[in-house]
């Protein structure tokens, strides 16, 4: 990563033009060329510094279900349960955290009704009680992550 990459990341976290030549437009603001911008984005994606270049959706507006849920998993069975949970295609990501509730995962389903069904399946398969903590309200945060 060089200073140019940092500038690209900082600038393009804030948005991207929706015009016929958006890379050219964004590149002008950054003081680089269109092909340079495209090439750097390819590099940053390939290196895994960016997970994606595209839209962030509002899941509920798309008609899908989304929630965060937690389990308490006994230490000795943790890896087995992690594998069981991660096998569900609806589990988007999963973190081990330092707490009595030590597994936290995000579930994204095609319909809101599927959330309860999948959580019940996870409960049955793992034998662990699922704590479902869906979003009630989202407070605005600045989306930019300044480097």
């Amino acid at each position: 990563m060089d200073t140019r990459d940092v500038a690209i990341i900082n600038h393009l976290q804030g948005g991207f033009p929706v015009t016929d030549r958006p890379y050219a437009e964004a590149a002008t603001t950054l003081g680089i060329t269109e092909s340079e911008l495209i090439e750097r984005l390819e590099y940053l994606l390939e290196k895994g510094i960016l997970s994606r270049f595209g839209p962030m959706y509002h899941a509920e507006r798309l008609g899908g279900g989304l929630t965060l849920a937690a389990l308490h998993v006994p230490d000795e069975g943790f890896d087995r349960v992690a594998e069981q949970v991660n096998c569900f295609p609806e589990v988007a990501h999963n973190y081990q955290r330092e707490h009595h509730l030590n597994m936290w995962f995000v579930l994204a389903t095609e319909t809101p009704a599927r959330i309860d069904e999948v959580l019940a399946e996870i409960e049955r398969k793992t034998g662990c009680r699922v704590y479902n903590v869906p979003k009630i309200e989202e407070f605005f945060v600045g989306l930019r992550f300044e480097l």
Partner: protein
Amino acid sequence: MGLTARDQQLVAAIQCGLPLVSRPFAEIGARIGLSESETIERIQALLTDGTIKRLGVVVRHHELGYRANAMAVWNIPDDEVDERGRHIGAVDFVTLCYRRPRHLPDWPYNLFSMIHGQNRDAVLRNIEHLIEQCGLGGIAHEVLFSRRRFKQCGAHYIDSQPRQVIVGGTRIPAGGQP
């Protein structure tokens, strides 16, 4: 919900990312039978109505050197949660802030905030600042550091062929990151 079949196709076509070509919206449109200008118009409409929250880069915090993250959770009286949630969300190192339900007696916390930092100490310092800045001294809280990340690949809300949720190589943090 309100999405037309055409918008669903569009959402599916760009969910993995925009093509890295000079005229990406022309290429997207060509895949689903829209002109470039129609594609641009529909994407602008989806941004305006909030279906697309944002278009741009999605960073991997870990790969950028922000190796520690913690979920700081707070037990806030229900009648204060709106105001305090807004204050916490406005602090610059807080990357997510949600109200979520308690599960008494096991889980008394109703406000969740995500804090990133270059290491564990930096995260803890940020949480101390947060307590001071937002007057959270009297509020019960816990800090849940992450130890391992198993999956960060992300939901694909709409498959381009059958309508089902698939999970692929990229992450869509559609307001739902923990």
